[in-house]
Each structure stands twice: as structure tokens, then as C-alpha cells.
């Protein structure tokens, strides 16, 4: 039994099946990278895990209780989800937006909005309007909000997209530290296969099914990638296990 259990879930929309009979069990402190081609079902899987979508078949349990039995605020303290598309046109200030991470709480938790903003390196811009920031900076603002929300399970849909390599590395480092200190679990959809080596475990999704899972150096093998992404790959040095970022 993990803290988040997906048991034989299937999900279809407009008669098209996006997730097929998929089971995953997430434990505390796990750091998981989710790989798969576009349309493979990564985002759908994260949305199902967050409760945004409901599976037609199977069940999802959070701490051994059906996910949809939780009240919104209670669920938000345990699990948070950050979508891939962050489309916002209202000129919130950075500090205002990050502070929304406290909405599920009546009694304020230890982390303050200023500390969360500092964690993503945006202290100098805390009073700027979000509409004045670059794509990467906006994403870091939302990541700060997610960190402030303080849930033990973070489901992040391609959070590294539009981040400079520096911030990609820093975000991974930050999340790993949080995992070490607070035992949080992270599931992150990835578009860059190289980044998979920074995770303890990698899941590969294809056509709504989990086709492989395990340590990155075992999983990122030619045949599996060829199958998952429908490409002809040759493993070069780039794909050799890098040292995890410390």
C-alpha cells in the first residue's frame, strides 16, 4: 500500500481510451520521472492522480481512502498539481499569486510566501506584475505557490518547460532537498529524456499504458525508447547515466 494508489484505472473521453488498465502505487519520498511521447497519456495520468479527472474504471486511493471522498481543502493539503499550460492574463503581483498557496489553510503553516519566493530565486521581483515576467519566471512563480501549498505529493506536468538549464537544475535540486528533508513525493512529467537521470525511478507511458518502470539507467535503453517514442534511437554518451545533481 502506497500513499497514493491507482488500481486498474481506465479513462476514456469521446469514446477514445486515454488510460488503459493502469496501476501505480506511490510511496512517501519517491522521486519519479514520467516519460512518454506526446499524447501517450502522461498529462491525463497526472490529472487522474490529482482528482481533476475521474476514471471510469478502477479506483484511486489517497492514504487508503478514495480520493473523491476528501473535502477540497483537505485534499489540497495532501496533494497538489501544477498543469503544463499556465495561461494567465490578470496582472497579479508575484507575492499575491504565491500567497494563494495558503488558501487551503485556516491556520498558517510554517513556510511564508516570502520564503517560497526566495526558494525559486524571485525575491527581487516579488512585487512585480506576473504579466511583466518571462515564461520561465512565471513558471517559477507557480512553483513557489505549489511549494507554499505544502502538500506531501507534488504532481508536476512538465514544470521544466521554458526554464533555462540553470533553473531546471535548481528546481530538481530544490525538490530533491525537500524530498530529503520532508519526505515529499514528486511525480514529474518530462519532455527531456536527459533529465530522467535525475530521478530515482522512471515510468514510461505509451498509449495509456505503463510499459516500463525502474531506475533510469535500466529504463533508458534503446529498445524501450524506440518503442515509447516511435523513433530510431542510438544510445550515445548523452544518455549515459549522469551523476545525479547534488
Amino acid at each position: 500500500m502506497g500513499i497514493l494508489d491507482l488500481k486498474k484505472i481506465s479513462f476514456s473521453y469521446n469514446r477514445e481510451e486515454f488510460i488503459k488498465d493502469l496501476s501505480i502505487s506511490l510511496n512517501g519520498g519517491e522521486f519519479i520521472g514520467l516519460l512518454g511521447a506526446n499524447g501517450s497519456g502522461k498529462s491525463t495520468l497526472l490529472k487522474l492522480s490529482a482528482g481533476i479527472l475521474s476514471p471510469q474504471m478502477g479506483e484511486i486511493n489517497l492514504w487508503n481512502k478514495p480520493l473523491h471522498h476528501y473535502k477540497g481543502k483537505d485534499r489540497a493539503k495532501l496533494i497538489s498539481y501544477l498543469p503544463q499550460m499556465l495561461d494567465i492574463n490578470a496582472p497579479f503581483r508575484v507575492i499575491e499569486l504565491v500567497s494563494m498557496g495558503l488558501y487551503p489553510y485556516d491556520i498558517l503553516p510554517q513556510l511564508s510566501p516570502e520564503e517560497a519566493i526566495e526558494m525559486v530565486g524571485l525575491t527581487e521581483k516579488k512585487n512585480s506584475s506576473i504579466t511583466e515576467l518571462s515564461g520561465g519566471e512565471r513558471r517559477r512563480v507557480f512553483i513557489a505557490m505549489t511549494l507554499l501549498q505544502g502538500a506531501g505529493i507534488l504532481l508536476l506536468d512538465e514544470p521544466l518547460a521554458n526554464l533555462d538549464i540553470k533553473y531546471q537544475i535548481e528546481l530538481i535540486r530544490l525538490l530533491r532537498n525537500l524530498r530529503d528533508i520532508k519526505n515529499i513525493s514528486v511525480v514529474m512529467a518530462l519532455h527531456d529524456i536527459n533529465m530522467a537521470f535525475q530521478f530515482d525511478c522512471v515510468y514510461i507511458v505509451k498509449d495509456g499504458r505503463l510499459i516500463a518502470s525502474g531506475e533510469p539507467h535500466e529504463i533508458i535503453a534503446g529498445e524501450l525508447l524506440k518503442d515509447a517514442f516511435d523513433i530510431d534511437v542510438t544510445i550515445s554518451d548523452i544518455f549515459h547515466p549522469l551523476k545525479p545533481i547534488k
Partner: protein
Amino acid sequence: MRKIILLIIVSICILFVSVFILPKFINPFNLDDTGSQIIFSIRLPRVIVSILMGSALGVSGAILQGLLRNPLADPYILGISSGATLMAAAGLIFGKIIFGLFTIPLLAFIGAISTGIAVGIMGYKGGGLLPERLLLAGIGIGFLFSSILMLLMSISADEGLKRAMLWIFGDLSMADWSLIPYGLIFIFAGFLLSIWRVKGLNALILGDEIAYSLGFSPFKERLILFISVGLMTASSVSLGGIVGFIGLLIPHIVRYFVGSDCRFLLPSSALAGGILLCMADTIGRTIMSPTEIPAGIITAIIGAPYFLYLLRRKEIMGV
């Protein structure tokens, strides 16, 4: 903080001018019978109605722009006003008086609320109220009702038609104490609902998925806020017809001063909308006195150039 104090002082000055000075000075410390008659029976109810209407429209606009994630949304875009107008105009044109003075406002309120419900039903799909569907349903219903209204007007007699036209352009001259308690109750109820769900509104502006992740049910939040807008818009239209500009542009202007956080944006839009309409109405009944210029025309003449000036200087909703 200084800006808010300034706004409150300006508001009090405008109120004083509207009640005692324009269009003709009446000394509040030396009231004769005629003077007190003018102030208590004519000016004061009119000032209160203009503030109520302007506040309702300002807040509704701010809510809808967040709720529909669209900077062009205003309280009339959901077709609520066309429903109200159609029913009120039908009452005026056919001259049906069923409930005395209350007939037209009551017809307008019924028209507005039933249109709101129809738009809500059409905007519902797959377990949620979808912003785009709400907008399209509102626009579709708005066109349908406007065309029926045109048809009614083209076949109607002169007197009813003139009154209906006045009403369509926003006519505060029919302001009267008897309606104020009802307007106040519904507008205040709508405002309280929106303040109760203000965190949900902030979260919805970030998108339904983030709102859900923060613990909100996007459907429930949108439904409550939609009801709040419906109540306020219906009451406002019932009190004095249609006044353009405030619902669309007041929230944008207020955002420059207080930002996007709806906890500050909603009360400030209420204050600014109420004061602007009160000022516009005072100007409208003064400059060509005794002829009145509808308040809606004055709000647009004052507000639109100021809005365009701000648009040149800064960006609106990120564009």
C-alpha cells in the same frame, strides 16, 4: 492606503455635490419645505439608486472578467440585460400595469433571472460551467432577445416606445424610494456572496485545474459567483435600465490602483462604479437642465477617454 483615503474623500465630496449643490444649490442648514421635498423625494433616492446600480455593475464586471477569464466580459454580455430589457419593454409598450409601480422593475427582474438561468443551463457541460459556453450562450440569447425587442418596437405605439427607449438608455429619473429596499437587499446579497467566494474567484482566474488543486470546486465556485452576478445585474437593470461602460471598464481602471487581487478589486470596483454613476447622473441632470442626458451617455463620455489614456500608458490584462 493614501489612494483609498483620497478616493473616499472624493466620494464624499461627490455625494455632497449631488445631493445639495447640483443642479441648484439647496442650503442643508436652512431647509425650507420645498428644499427638503427636493432633497428627500427627488435627489436622495436618485443618488442612492445611482450608487446601487453603479456598485452592482462595477462588482459584476470585475467578477465576470475573472470568472470567464476574459477582459471583454461585462455584466450585459451574458444576455441577462437583454432578457430584462425585453420583458420591461414589452410591459412598457403594451402598457400592462399589474403590480402598480413595481410592474416594470418586477418584469425586468423576472426577465433577467430567467435569462440568467437559461444561459447557465446552456453553459453547463460535462459537470462544469464552461466559460466559453457561458459567453457564447449569453451572446446567442442576447441577439435573439434584441431582435424580438426590435420587432416589438417596430410594431408599437409612440408613447410606450418612447418610454421603452428611455429605459434602454438607462433612465434614473424614475428613481423612487419604494424600489430602493428591494434593490439594496438583492445587490447586497449578491455582493456578500461574491465576497464570501472571493478566494475561489482569485483561484479560478489562475485556471480551473489550479483552482481545483488549491481545494476549490470550479463548478461550485463558478455557480455561486454566477448567481451573485445574476442577482446584482438583474437588480441594477430593474432599478434604472441599462447603463453601459461601468461594468466593462471600471474594473480595468480600478486594477491600475489596487491590483488584481479580488479581495481588494471587488470592494474598490463597487465604490468606484457607484461614485462614477452618481457623478455622471448629477452631470447629466445639470448641464442641460431641465433636459436630462441619460447617465449611461455621460459615464461613457467621461470614462472612455480616461480608459483610452490609461491603455496608451500601460498594458491591460497583460496585452
